[in-house]
């Protein structure tokens, strides 16, 4: 073998190794973060952590029951507002999205997917908080919904498009009207995929903090009133992590572990749901 050929093979092998090393280095932080969360958070998690609200600063103990419930309520509100709009827009893109309007909606959805969540928070503040002079969980839910909609629209579109054309043709040939074909055949068949998209969307907004800073604001007390300021796990972590007390830092790690558990469960559930249906995608 000539020296040149050896050099080429060698450089190919070296670059392959380098690419593998880079890939490994990219995955490492996830493992570190998970390890740290479990190492520093798990010991603080007990029954009280889930059932109590915070004690005054300086004392030990207390929990984040209010933040867990608050996260649930605000994410629930976001789903109520965001799911119909996002899924509807996605079905529109898949069924009628061939024209100019489809192109615009698709492009806007992709662009909005990259809009900073803090900007959405400011917008929600000017629209939903300033006019009523009152922070509220409702405004927080609406802000999260605005983040969910563009994502849902694109994943729903993709999922409906995966449905084979022959199914639609069969339904239409049997005399089904278009709208029933769309709802009962196309959307019905793509349902597992749409649910996955929704789960992914929920996982993403459940950890959001920035758009809640001046909409839901945070609250140290337990509340289920959506017209009042409300705490979420993410806001609680922010307050505890940036605060001066050791005890708060301990609770921040615990709350972060709970939040990660929630988000990862949703993400893995989403993955599992599509796996069942379409195999590895």
């Amino acid at each position, binding site marked *: 073998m000539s020296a040149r050929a050896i050099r*080429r093979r060698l450089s*190919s092998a070296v*670059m*392959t190794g380098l690419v593998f090393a*880079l*890939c490994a280095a*990219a*995955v490492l932080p*996830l493992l570190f*973060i998970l390890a*740290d969360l479990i190492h520093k958070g798990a010991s603080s998690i007990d029954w009280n952590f889930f059932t109590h609200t915070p004690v005054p600063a300086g004392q030990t103990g207390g929990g984040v029951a209010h933040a867990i419930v608050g996260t649930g309520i605000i994410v629930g509100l976001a789903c109520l507002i965001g799911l119909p*709009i996002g899924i*509807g*827009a996605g079905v529109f893109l*898949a069924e*009628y*999205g*061939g*024209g100019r*309007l489809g192109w*615009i909606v*698709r492009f806007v959805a*992709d*662009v*909005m997917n*990259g*809009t*900073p*969540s*803090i*900007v959405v*928070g*400011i*917008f929600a503040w000017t629209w939903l908080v300033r006019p009523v002079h009152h922070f509220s969980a409702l405004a927080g839910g609406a802000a999260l919904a605005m983040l969910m909609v563009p994502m849902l*629209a694109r*994943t729903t579109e*993709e999922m409906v498009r995966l449905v084979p054309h022959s199914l*639609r043709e069969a339904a*239409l040939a049997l*005399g089904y*009207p*278009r709208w029933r074909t*769309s*709802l009962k055949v196309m959307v019905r068949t793509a349902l597992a995929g749409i649910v996955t998209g929704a789960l992914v969307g929920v*996982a*993403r907004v459940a*950890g*959001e*903090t*920035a758009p809640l800073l*001046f909409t839901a*604001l945070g609250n140290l007390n337990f509340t289920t009133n959506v017209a009042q300021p409300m705490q979420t796990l993410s806001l609680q*972590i*922010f307050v505890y*992590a940036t605060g001066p007390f050791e005890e708060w830092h301990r609770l921040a*790690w615990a709350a*972060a572990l709970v939040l*990660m558990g929630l988000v990862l469960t949703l*993400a893995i559930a989403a993955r599992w749901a599509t796996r069942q249906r379409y195999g*590895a995608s």
Partner: protein
Amino acid sequence: MPLTITPPPAVTTSGPAPAAKRRNRGDRFYRGILTALALCLPLLLVTIAAELVVGAGPSIRRFGFAFLGRSTWDPVAEVYGAAPMIFGTIVSSLLALVIAVPLALGVAVFLTEFAPKWMRQPVAFLVELLAAVPSVVYGLWGVFVLIPFLRQVAVPPLRALLGWTPFVSGVFYGNSMLASGVILAIMIVPYIAAVSREVLLAVPGSQREAALGLGATRWEAVWSAVLPYGRAGVIGAVMLGLGRALGETMAVTMLIGNRHDISLSLLQPGYTMAAALANEFSEATTSLYLSALVEVGLILFLITIAVNAAARLLVWRVARGTAAGSKAL
């Protein structure tokens, strides 16, 4: 995608049968509702832009373009300039890109070209999970793990290596441009990797086969046939990552030090537009202060829109019409 099949027209002699009429009404109704829901998206975008412009109005009228170049931020004297934040936003994002792009391309190339089949799905999934970690958790980890690590392990050799440049001067307290750049890099790797991977998957197999058939080694095939083919898409993927980094808020707020200051040294605190909004928006007491902050939001909005729009057009050129990146959480 337009329908190619339409329902057969009802065969009648005197106009459509009642059933067909009802059917059309149902179709029109269905389409109308879906169109209305889809219109929400462009409407929302336009409303956000309009609302920000209106909110920023007083500040724009008062300061004009000087707002962009001034580095004073004085709520007492009511003089505002966003230069340090714009500087900090750009520097932290570029630093993040410098670190993240090689890693992300490594992931994408490894997963599409070199990895054994059984490894591809699990590793891709792990990288996607990185995108699922909430920003505030990255911030927490950054404050209590990354900063001590930088202080003890990374900064001393960095100083030894680059001590003669202005980029590592000054005392390192932890909260700094460097810390936020590193955390941003970790956060945007999954986005760049996921989109690049989709782009590389869209490169036709014939490209690789042709290069290999001409006697190229595997790396040469990737470097000379696959990457150039997907170049526009990969650049788009990097720009998507840039868009993320520019607007990322919580982790940066917790790590950058939040000081209205322009410093060449990466070890010094700085500020970004998003961090300023997170910190000061609820404290803004006067209407001009508020308006100045909304203008910061408007600038951030316009920059990210421009970056994202350009990125999308580039990605669409390669992976046509697919929702690239939508699989990254």
